[in-house]
């Protein structure tokens, strides 16, 4: 190109360069989000934490309250030389802890700048008082009030749940709701009612300069927001009963669930072993210990453990048999220490009267009787084949709440499982199994899995003669409405007229007196009219599980209970006495059988329980 014309490309280049710059500026100023950042950059939000709502029991006792605790903060830039050992003594930590922390802050000093960082969390008031007296000796260190949970009753960590600082994963799961440093309920009621309990954070806004020093309140504090305290929650729990259940279950693995049949309100929800409330408030410090405990105290067995229900399930099969018309109460079947089928196969039973009718079969918990019942249900001519018979049976079983989540307001509920024809088609092949293949379903073994909550719900359903309310843990109170679903009766597919027939058998199981063959005579309490059904479920790892469901009194029942004790042996050995003690405690407020109570409380089955 002729040099005389070269100013033209240069001028074009100049224009392009100017357009590039202006384009970038335009995108920064008009298109991008940098504007938002500027406000955040020069204002500092000082969070005001709300007090967390109190959790009450059904009678107004405080289950979970608040007490004052302190965080110890440090502004590393303001720290001067001090006596590390003296500070460590006052704060109840080792000097190495403090030296380590300060070393860490020194490493991060450019990031920390003039800010304060939390050196210790949840320091109890006594420790803080000691620190407060001498803190003038430790410039740069200061305390900050922070609410801490307080537990007047030992209601069990799994029921109440714990509160802890949110981690990044939790923040991500709840976009826009939490920031690092916030606390949230992680399990139990604390998690179920987190939205009400947490309240709303407030903030003071200050303007700051680039060295993070506060210059002045932003707009004179006009934009500040007060914290709104969390709402109180009234639960359906009976604190005394819950604590009593905890005491009964100590040193055993399993759970007790008690429900008020007329409302579906959960009166007690015990899972053992659990987290002791003394560790709950400051769970972070005990986390290692809790998470490495082989008995898994974090695992809420009441709603998460899927067990075979055992003989308790005979009630369901009996009811379905009655409804389907393949069983009449007066029908008798023989039992020669078991049910014999095929070539030399036998499903065993214990020694009792034979033949026997339905009421007696419940009272004495005959296995053979229910083999006949289940066979008749599955092989019912109404249905083309066993597969259809089974699927219809499954549908009816699920109408009791089995095999699915009940829809309780308690978190982390599991669904258990009820097998269908598909389950067996997969295992054996289509058409290559029949009702005797799956005969153990008759006695609640095999592929049936249910949680203690399911069993308690079954018990409440029978107590109500045919319907249940979805079990729930929170009572309606000011500002905390009860979801409509908890107010509706849930009917099963079995007609309400069938229920009194099995209730009679349950009454006889408990109230026939020793020697009459009733499996649960030990649960008898004078004038309480307890109706119950024992269960002894096979446990592939060691001794059988002890299972018992009962409700009392027979007419207008006030409580329905399921007790499940892992490796407890017969249903009558542990589960039945415990459940009856719970019923007695709830209805009469006292215990007429102190020796039995003592034996139950002192029993230690932990050695029997095999864990992974």
């Amino acid at each position: 190109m002729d040099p005389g014309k070269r100013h033209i490309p240069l001028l074009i280049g100049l224009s392009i360069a100017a357009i590039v710059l202006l384009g970038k500026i335009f995108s920064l100023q008009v298109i991008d989000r940098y504007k938002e950042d500027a406000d955040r950059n020069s204002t500092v939000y000082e969070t005001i934490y709300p007090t967390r709502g109190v959790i009450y029991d059904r009678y107004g006792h405080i289950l979970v309250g608040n007490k004052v605790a302190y965080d110890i903060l440090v502004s590393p830039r303001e720290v001067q030389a001090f006596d590390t050992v003296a500070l460590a003594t006052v704060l109840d930590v080792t000097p190495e802890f403090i030296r380590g922390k300060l070393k860490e802050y020194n490493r991060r000093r450019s990031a920390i700048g003039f800010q304060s960082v939390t050196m210790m969390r949840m320091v109890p008031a006594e420790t803080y008082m000691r620190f407060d007296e001498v803190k003038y000796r430790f410039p740069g260190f200061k305390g900050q009030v922070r609410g801490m949970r307080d537990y007047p009753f030992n209601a069990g960590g799994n029921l109440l749940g714990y509160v802890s600082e949110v981690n990044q994963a939790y923040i991500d799961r709840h976009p826009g709701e939490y920031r690092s440093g916030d606390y949230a309920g992680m399990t139990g009621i604390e998690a179920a009612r987190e939205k009400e309990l947490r309240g709303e954070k407030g903030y003071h806004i200050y303007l700051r300069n680039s060295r993070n020093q506060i210059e002045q309140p932003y707009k004179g504090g006009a934009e500040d927001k007060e914290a709104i305290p969390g709402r109180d929650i009234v639960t359906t729990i009976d604190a005394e009963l819950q604590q009593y259940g905890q005491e009964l279950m100590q040193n055993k693995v399993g759970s007790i669930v008690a429900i008020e049949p007329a409302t579906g309100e959960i009166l007690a929800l015990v899972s053992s072993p659990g987290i002791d409330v003394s560790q709950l408030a400051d769970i972070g410090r005990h986390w290692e210990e809790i998470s490495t405990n082989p008995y898994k105290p974090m695992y809420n067995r009441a709603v998460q453990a899927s067990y075979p229900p055992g003989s308790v399930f005979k009630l369901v099969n009996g009811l379905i048999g009655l409804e389907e018309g393949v069983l009449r109460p007066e029908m008798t079947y023989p039992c020669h220490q078991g049910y014999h089928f095929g070539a030399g196969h036998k499903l065993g039973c214990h020694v009792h009267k034979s033949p026997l009718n339905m009421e007696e079969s419940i009272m004495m918990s005959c296995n053979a009787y229910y083999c006949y019942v289940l066979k008749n249900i599955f092989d019912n001519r109404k249905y083309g084949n066993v597969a259809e018979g089974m699927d219809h049976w499954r549908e009816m079983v699920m109408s009791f709440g089995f095999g699915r989540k009940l829809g309780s307001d308690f978190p982390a509920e599991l669904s258990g499982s009820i097998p269908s024809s598909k389950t067996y088609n997969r295992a054996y092949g289509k058409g290559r199994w029949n009702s005797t293949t799956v005969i153990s379903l008759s006695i609640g073994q095999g592929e049936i899995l249910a949680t203690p909550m399911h069993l308690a719900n079954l018990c409440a359903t029978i107590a109500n003669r045919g319907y249940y309310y979805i079990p729930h843990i929170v009572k309606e109170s000011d500002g905390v409405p009860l979801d409509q679903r908890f107010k509706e009766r849930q009917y099963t597919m079995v007609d309400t007229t069938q229920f009194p027939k099995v209730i009679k058998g349950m009454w006889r199981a408990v109230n026939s007196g020793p020697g009459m063959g009733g499996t649960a005579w030990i649960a008898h309490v004078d004038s309480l009219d307890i109706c119950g059904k024992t269960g002894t479920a096979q446990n592939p790892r060691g001794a059988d599980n002890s299972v018992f469901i009962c409700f009392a009194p027979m007419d207008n029942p006030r409580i329905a209970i399921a007790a499940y004790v892992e490796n407890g042996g017969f249903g009558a050995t542990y589960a039945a006495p415990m459940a009856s003690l719970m019923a007695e405690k709830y209805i009469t407020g006292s215990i007429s059988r102190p020796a039995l109570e003592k034996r139950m409380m002192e029993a230690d089955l932990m050695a029997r329980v095999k864990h992974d």
Partner: protein
Amino acid sequence: MIDSNSGRRSLRQTVDWWIIAVYLALVVIGWVNIYAATHTAEAGSMLDWGSRAGKQFVWILTSFGLAALILWVLPPQLWEGVAPVFYAFVLGLLVLVIFVSSDVKGSHSWFDLGPIRFQPAEISKITTSLLLSLVMSQQWFKMGRPRDFLIAAAIIGFPMLVIVAESETGSALVYAGFIFVLYREGLSGWLLSAIGLIILLFVGTLTAGAYTTILIMIGILVLSAALSEPSRLKNRLLAGGGFVLVMALFPTFLGWIGDLVQGEMDKLSMRPWVPRADETEDYFWGFVLRIKPLWVLIGLSVAAMPLLLWRAYKLKDRFLAFCCGVFIAGVVMVFSTDFVFQNVLQPHQRGRIEVLLGLKEDLAGIGYNVNQSKIAIGSGGLLGKGFLKGTQTTFGFVPEQSTDFIFCTVGEEWGFLGCLIVISLYVWLIARLIIDAERCRGKFTRIYGYCVAACIFMHLFINVGMTVGLMPVIGIPLPLLSYGGSSLWAFTILIFIFLALYRNEKKYF
């Protein structure tokens, strides 16, 4: 406009008043923004001598004095004569300062004379411009001759090297702008394009990746090939543009297919009776996941290259052959960039380049300034927050706010409108310098004019580019706006020498 019969002409007619007006506007804008940048809640007036704005006012007044001196008192012919002496003297100062200066943020470039500090690097731009103009305006000088080119390069290179030794990399980079002057005076345009392409490829490979860079290169070549022969414009644009478009969409398409396949395999592996994990390798469509778009692009190029070269040979199409050569060289460059960057550079060097190119966020370290400066500018919005209303400015988030980052204050308080005005003023100033330089008959004045334009352009582009995150953070002032006496003086002298020379030219027409 130019009346050749009028003999000596008055000042009013011979001075480019546009340049003086823009100069005044920029100086005043600078002064106002320095006041805003250093303004605090309890600050005094703009004329408070203790404040930076007050001091700047003094610098401005003295600059006016300097300007008047150059324009009216000193004879314009003087500059040609003293150029070599001045150049040598300032070069000496540049070297001297390394040994006697105090350490200011790691650089040794300031003379500390009691109350006044000054940077010889600022003056060196003037002396280099003068000597370069002097040498290149000689009759014997031919840009095309390697010896002459080397002489010009040496004049630029010496002060540049010394300034690098002072650890003032930013100031040294400004000297690269003199290449535009060389271009104007006959340096091959190919060289300029080649340098531009190398920079583009290097930055492109590191930021956008090899695939995109090669694609952009193909796009550029297709476009220039199409434009070089207007007769084949349509066909070449269609074929080349179509190829670029298809290949640009190719990775997206591949990703889409990949997701589909991945989803299908996930579904399969969820079922226990179909092959799991390691067996999915054998899954028919699994190979799609292993296709790398870059290989496909390179494969196609390698396949097409002999074809194109053969065609170029047959048609005696030198441009096509040239394009192929550029392409091959470019691809080699792209891959060696990656290789050099990953394997030859030390980790800390890599880290620095990565932050410079914005590949890594480093908001606390090197990236802090840029991030704060972008926030400040971005917060201005379309119309700005208004004079003294900038929060970023007042609370000192942006470092060097009144000097190197003065543009932040403009952006925050005056918004896009303010930025547009300021940049337009600079563009008008530079364009005016180029236009005036072209009008000159004397080679010396013309080259000098280009030198001034190049210096201002480099300062503008690097400084503003730095504040908005387009350029790495290298501290050089924004001409006439930034706080600081030596910078303001230097640019005043630089510009007014040109005005004096230009006036001298016009006087006799």
